[in-house]
């Protein structure tokens, strides 16, 4: 006889449902093993997950090894220029076939018995084929592919779920906001080199939660960056701007001056010669206007892909801040660990000197050795410790996500916001994070094949 009943994970998800309308979140989400196991299947096993940028695999045969959840996938450009996302496991015994983090190849040969696969993942041969496998079809014995692969502005995503909607439908309103950063000119962006990788003892959601629009932490946690002149906008002024729930699950935040004529950085601090190439041939006048007025854009595409654009410098005494773009994934690495993959992006038509400046400014601020980011990991480590806490459970400890709810603080809904989604003025607001957790709860409960809504108006 088997006894089934509500698990601890169910209880936490119930507590999330009950708490969210009041701005309360159970901390156990950040430390419970059952929740984590369910996340791997129901979020990372189903959602569109960011893997690579097309500029990393420009030539035929170029590949990088990346992760969906905890699993390795080869992202490779095949002989015909198509991008394939192949599960890195030999069909014979499950052995890893890709032996490098990146490279260029015409095939992968398994080190165990020598099954060999081409850049599309097809099985093309094995030693002494006729003796060993003569009569067995090669078709159907290739590397297993992700269910769907798509890219948007060169950002390559994949999903393991054949029932997933097309990428653009999944991104919903978020696509409009990606356009106004990645689509400002016809050249678009490229990656500098290869991603940095770090593992820290925190839960992956702390990164997504932070990049969904936790601007309020800057004044305390990152106070040192003003003391050394790394960032040009004072804390209080930087809280002016918009919080946007672009679509269920996807949130972002803009730092913007209250009026257009205010001095200070425009277009995320990009150099003027670059800004001169931005136009409305690919985006609307509204999108260009938001980009023009923005000092900072920080965003999270559910579940774990984050984007940040802002003016920074690694050496305030010698270099004024310049526009920096970092993209990253918060890759789950067990319930209590996250691997941070951090890429720097530059516009393709920047001069080599501008690219170098942007890269150095980004590296010196938004990397594990950077003045900004090195402080972030400190609190996230203890969030995950609280998430594992028995006391938190026994004492009915809940996290407060109430900022900007009716009667709490000064944030107000914006009625005439020109973009998709729900917008608030001033960034004293945590609806962006509540939006993340509402969709999270829905995905964690959705039955196989069923999907929550991707738009607020459906």
């Amino acid at each position: 006889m088997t006894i089934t009943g509500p698990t601890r994970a169910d209880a936490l998800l119930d507590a999330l449902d009950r708490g969210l309308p009041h701005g309360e979140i159970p901390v156990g989400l950040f430390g419970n093993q059952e929740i984590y196991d369910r996340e791997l299947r129901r979020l990372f096993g189903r959602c569109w997950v960011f893997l690579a940028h097309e500029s990393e695999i420009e030539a035929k045969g170029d590949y990088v090894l990346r992760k969906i959840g905890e699993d390795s996938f080869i992202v490779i450009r095949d002989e015909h220029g198509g991008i394939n996302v192949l599960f890195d496991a030999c069909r014979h015994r499950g052995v890893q076939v890709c032996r490098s983090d990146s490279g260029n190849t015409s095939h992968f040969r398994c080190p165990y018995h020598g099954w060999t696969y081409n850049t599309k993942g097809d099985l093309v041969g094995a030693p002494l084929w006729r003796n060993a496998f003569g009569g067995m079809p090669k078709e159907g014995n290739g590397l297993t592919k992700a269910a769907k692969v798509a890219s948007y502005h060169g950002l390559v995503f994949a999903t393991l779920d054949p029932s997933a909607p097309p990428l653009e439908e999944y991104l919903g309103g978020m696509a409009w906001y990606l356009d106004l950063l990645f689509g400002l000119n016809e050249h678009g962006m490229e990656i500098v080199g290869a991603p940095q990788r770090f593992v820290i003892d925190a839960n992956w959601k702390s990164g997504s939660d932070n990049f969904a629009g936790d601007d309020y932490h800057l004044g305390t946690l990152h106070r040192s960056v003003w003391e050394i002149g790394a960032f040009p906008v004072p804390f209080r002024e930087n809280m002016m701007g918009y919080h946007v729930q672009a679509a269920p699950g996807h949130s972002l935040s803009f730092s913007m001056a209250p009026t257009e004529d205010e001095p200070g950085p425009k277009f995320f601090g990009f150099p003027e010669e670059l800004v001169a190439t931005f136009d409305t041939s690919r985006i609307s006048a509204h999108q260009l206007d938001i980009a023009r007025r923005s000092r900072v854009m920080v965003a999270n595409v559910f579940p774990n892909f984050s984007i940040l654009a802002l003016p920074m410098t690694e050496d305030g005494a010698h270099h004024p801040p310049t526009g920096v773009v970092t993209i990253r994934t918060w890759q789950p690495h067990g319930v209590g660990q996250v691997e941070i993959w951090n890429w720097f992006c530059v516009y393709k038509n920047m001069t080599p000197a501008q690219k170098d400046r942007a890269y150095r400014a980004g590296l010196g601020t938004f990397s594990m050795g950077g003045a900004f980011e090195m402080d972030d990991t400190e609190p996230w480590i203890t969030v995950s410790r609280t998430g594992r806490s028995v006391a938190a459970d026994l004492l009915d400890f809940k996290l407060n996500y109430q900022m900007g709810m009716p009667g709490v603080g000064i944030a107000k809904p914006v009625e005439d916001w020109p973009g998709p989604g729900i917008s608030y003025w001033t960034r004293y607001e945590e609806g962006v994070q509540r939006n993340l957790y509402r969709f999270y709860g829905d995905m964690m409960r959705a039955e196989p094949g069923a999907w929550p809504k991707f738009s607020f108006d459906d």
Partner: protein
Amino acid sequence: MGRVMAGSPLYDEVVQWMDIEAELLDEYREREWLEGMVSQEVVYQVPLRQTVERARGTGFVDGVYHLDETYGSLRSRVARNETAYAWAEDPPSRIRHFVTNIRASEDGDAIGVRSNLLIFRTRQEQTQPQLLSGERRDVLRREDGVLKLYRRRVLLDLTVIGTHNLSIFF
């Protein structure tokens, strides 16, 4: 370019320089280190590394780094650690630099020094240390009679870095 023999006065001077540097860094005397031991023209780099097949070499990726510092950016880092808000290192982690296998060679004014480096680090109540192992390839240069760090390239034995930040100095 000639090898500096162990036991020679110059070799002893280099070893002592390395030991004093480690002492300053282990004792959080970062400003003393920067102002007394580092050249204004320093290039200080920790390149990014990937796993690659043997035939492709050691996996260091051209032009991408974990740290790529000049004197100005090093000064920013030191100044940051001196603010009251450098949470990453306050309370500071306990750090010990173990520097071994020192080999020196002389080329005019410059002394090339290769050494193995092991950094042992704990924070808060951790009992498992974070370990960072690698090779330092330095160039020391005499400036007004004083040996200064002119180039440092730290080749880590890691592709994924398992420490909560790189607010430390290698």
